[in-house]
């Protein structure tokens, strides 16, 4: 049977197929590779590293919120020692000023602003908050959910040998890599990384880190303007955006041009549809932010006034800018990207969950066509809701009414998608494997995130809840137990295809239950903290705000809930350890895949050798049927791969025998 063909046999096929292909130097094979699978894995690993880094930034912030004004354990102690060491005699700034020698420790000085005495400073908190958001969205989730899974899975699922433009694909990853370098370097410049929020609203983002028109003599203006957190942030974002533009052109062209014979549009797996729409969102929504990024770069480096209003006063002094700009312009351009970006974050997740639910329930998706329609409507509508993030700017009632209406309309396709996935479970013979556990947990978690967004669509409610912890809880429910759970599901699901080994089911289940419990402990209390009025940017967790420290919600005051939340966050971190161990250990020592199709799935990516070689397929791929032909009555097996020949009796045939 084809399904039981071992990997060794396929390896032999692979070599026969690729005999014209010379052995490449490892640097071309693994580093500057043009193979979509390698690029997908590069994106995935980089993304996972950043996801963990962003999570660690948040852990330091959570410590600060629960225990304001205390030394952060471990990190803070090390940083406190570092600060003390930097301030010792030969290295201290005073000593250097006396001798006039060059400060060779300038790249570490930021720590004195971020962790004075081992405690997280207010600036440090802002910086970590801004970088947590930026890293999680643009360097964690989009690279994993879109670029990594999209690169690895989409060409395999449509039966293509690679992406249409392999070299542009490589350029995309390396452009992204440069943007990562900018973001990492920005932690080591004087003052530390950007600290104006992931939204970088001007005028704050224009004046921060610039010393506000004070030019110490002998200080090179170039360094002053360029090597600071916010300018590096905006430069890094320009590279990040370029990377995702190159990627999205490639994705769309691949899906349109390289579908295997017989892979008609309505036979595409839903994941491919999700990536298709996501690529369009990135293609069309990101460029305005690139334009805005270019303008912010001009403002910061060449002193223009795109976003600086006339006569802005900072520190009781009128600023040096010529003025005449508009801070609202940034908000429009930013949210014109950043609302579609929300769907960029969630759609690949929904796509992955759809694949895994169909496979895990052993039945076709409920309402595949409705889901495809819904995802297109969703993609289109996501372009005309952006100003619901801007109710606080004092827009007129008519404009607000328009955006309230579109925002409510966009919940219809979202509900169609979620309902279809939920109904797909009905009557299925569910296999509760680890990917399936994550996929099923995604549904209620994304449901909570989505439904709590509906009140925010209304101007009147939003004015109260704006910038409170309610917002934090709402979008984290969508993105963290939503998309990140989908990402975990995807990792457990496709890991065997990428490595040829299974992840441990036991560790996977430990990972799942720990994550599910603690992520809810982390985000659920934020809803009532937010409704009690706790603001998202209080760096002391509201300790200095009497009304919050006294107000009791569900038996705890705001501060006590902070402790509960932070404890959950640390336990959530502990719950990720089995995953990290599992991920690396299984690469070498995991159970070998029993065959090329360990989950008994129907889609084309399981028709490749494991792991797939360069060029992917060892046989001619022809597609004869839809993506989810599970449990066809009368069929020999409960799944019929898309590439299986149709039988004369319109019934799945027995598998071809060797």
């Amino acid at each position, binding site marked *: 049977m084809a399904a039981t063909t071992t990997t060794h046999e396929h390896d032999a096929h692979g070599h026969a197929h690729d005999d014209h292909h010379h052995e490449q130097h490892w640097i071309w094979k693994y580093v500057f590779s043009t193979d979509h699978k390698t690029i997908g894995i590069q994106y995935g690993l980089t993304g996972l590293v950043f996801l963990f880094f962003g999570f660690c930034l948040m852990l330091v912030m959570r410590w600060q919120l629960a225990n304001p004004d205390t030394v952060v354990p471990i990190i803070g102690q090390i940083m406190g020692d570092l600060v003390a060491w930097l301030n010792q005699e030969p290295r201290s700034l005073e000593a250097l000023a006396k001798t006039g020698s060059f400060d060779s420790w300038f790249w570490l000085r930021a720590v004195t602003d971020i962790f004075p005495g081992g405690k997280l400073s207010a600036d440090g908190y802002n910086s970590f908050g801004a970088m947590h958001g930026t890293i999680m969205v643009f360097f964690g989730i989009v690279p994993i959910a879109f670029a990594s899974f999209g690169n690895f899975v989409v060409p395999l699922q449509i039966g293509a040998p690679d992406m*249409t433009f392999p070299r542009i694909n490589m350029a995309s990853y390396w452009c992204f890599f440069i943007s990562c370098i900018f973001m990492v370097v920005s932690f080591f410049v004087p003052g530390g990384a950007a600290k104006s929020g992931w939204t970088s609203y001007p005028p704050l983002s224009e004046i921060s880190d610039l010393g506000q028109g004070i030019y110490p*003599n002998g200080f090179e203006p170039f360094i002053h303007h360029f090597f600071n957190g916010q300018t590096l942030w905006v430069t890094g974002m320009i590279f990040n955006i370029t990377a995702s533009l190159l990627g999205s052109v490639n994705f769309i*062209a691949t899906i349109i*041009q390289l579908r295997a014979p017989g892979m008609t549009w309505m036979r595409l797996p839903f994941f491919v549809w999700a990536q298709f729409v996501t690529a369009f969102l990135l293609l069309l929504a990101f460029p305005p932010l690139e334009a805005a990024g270019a303008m912010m770069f001009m403002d910061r480096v060449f*002193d223009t006034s795109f976003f600086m209003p006339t006569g802005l006063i900072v520190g009781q002094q009128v600023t040096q800018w010529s003025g*005449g700009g508009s801070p*609202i312009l940034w908000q429009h*351009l930013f949210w014109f990207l950043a609302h579609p970006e929300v769907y960029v974050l969630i759609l690949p997740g929904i796509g992955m969950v759809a694949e895994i639910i169909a496979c895990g329930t052993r039945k076709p998706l409920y309402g595949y066509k409705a889901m495809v329609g819904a995802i297109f409507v969703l993609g289109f509508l996501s372009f005309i809701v952006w100003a619901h993030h801007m109710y606080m700017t004092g827009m007129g009632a008519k404009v607000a009414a328009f955006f309230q209406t579109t925002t409510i309309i966009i919940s219809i396709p979202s509900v169609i998608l979620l309902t279809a996935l939920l109904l797909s479970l009905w009557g299925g013979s569910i296999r509760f494997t680890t990917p399936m556990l994550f996929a099923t947990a995604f549904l209620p978690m994304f449901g909570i995130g989505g439904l709590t967004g509906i009140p925010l669509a209304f101007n009147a409610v939003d004015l109260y809840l704006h910038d409170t912890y309610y917002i934090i809880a709402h979008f984290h429910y969508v993105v963290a137990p939503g998309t990140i759970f989908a990402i975990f599901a995807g990792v457990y699901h496709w890991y065997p295809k990428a490595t040829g080994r299974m992840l441990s089911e036991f560790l996977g289940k430990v990972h799942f239950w720990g994550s599910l419990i603690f992520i809810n402990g982390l985000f659920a209390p934020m809803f009532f903290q937010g409704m009690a009025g706790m603001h998202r940017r209080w760096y002391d967790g509201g300790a200095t705000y009497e009304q919050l420290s006294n107000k009791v919600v569900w038996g705890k005051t705001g501060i006590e809930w902070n402790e509960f939340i932070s404890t959950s966050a640390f336990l959530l971190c502990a719950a990720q350890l089995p995953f990290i161990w599992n991920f690396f250990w299984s690469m070498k020592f995991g159970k070998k895949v029993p065959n090329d199709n360990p989950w008994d799935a129907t889609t084309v990516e399981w028709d490749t050798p494991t792991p797939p070689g360069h060029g992917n397929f060892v046989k001619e791929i022809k597609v004869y049927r839809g993506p989810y032909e599970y449990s066809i009555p009368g069929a020999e097996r409960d799944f019929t791969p898309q590439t299986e020949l149709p039988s004369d009796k319109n019934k799945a045939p027995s598998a071809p025998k060797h």
Partner: protein
Amino acid sequence: MQIPYEVQARPDTGLYNAKLGIWLFLASEVMLFGGLFSAYIFLRMGADPGYWPHGLLNVPVGTFNTAVLIASSVTVVLSWASLKMRKLQQYKLWMGITIACGVVFLGVKLLYEWPQKFHHFGAFIKPAALEKYEPYLGNQHLKEKKLAPRVEISGHLHEVIIDASKADKAKFDAFLKEHHLTAEPDHHDHALTLVKGKHLTPGVAEKLPMIPSATDARVSGVKIVAFEVGLDPANADPTNPENERPHFKFKPPTETLARVEAADIESASAFAPKHSPYFAVYFTITGLHGLHVLAGVIVMLYLWLPIKGGTLLYKKNPEHLANRVETVGLFWHFVDLVWIFVFPIFYLL
């Protein structure tokens, strides 16, 4: 491994890969320039009366560049058509002309239009001081005719009057020498210093306050007191009806001099990006457009030269080369199209 449809079109879509790719890329480019053009609209709508300049740019030069770019769009199509007819020599000719047009366009932009602006000086007058400079602004006259007020004095920067009494003498002299400037006591107030010279640009004037004080190296030792400006025609003769409306002829600064006190100035600089939102968006859009022209020229040069990806490809697979030319041609048309928007909104409106 061969990627399908690299040269031949896929039957059901009718496209080869690169053609689809470039159209998608151009869609994102539309959004990129769309973002910038909407910034233009936003800033222009939000500008206070008198703060959005009109008729500043050199229309004949802009028209010339427009013609050059449109011509190159025609020649790039001819070069593609030549390849389709398998006439390599004709292709080389037309492509060569296209590249030359791109280079001429960039040359005019970078060697003539931009530097001219960096040497021009403009100072926005504070509302309270507008009355004082009425002879150069003519606002009474403009008000009677119900026209937008004039709030800027612009022209050629002749001299800068500074208070250098606290400056570090050695550093000050070094600065003058470095920038080929001369200093003498001011005619009106001998305590002040008058700095002048052929190489005095607004950019150099801006650096004067960075000369440190004699007593404390961290404090500025120079304070700008006033600018002596050779006025633009509109400021030299503000009530002349010819200067009321934007004029499409370029007029050089006049011999009339005016002294503008630094205390009366809201902001002053060269006609550089930071001068005003107008120049900010002008330089950003034309700069980004220029980068696109440069990219197009580089790619077309690659397809023109006798190298593996260029005309040597003709022998191996002429259709492949024709496809490449078609792809870059589409991009080139887009670059041209952007200019068709840039030209009216900055030069004419």
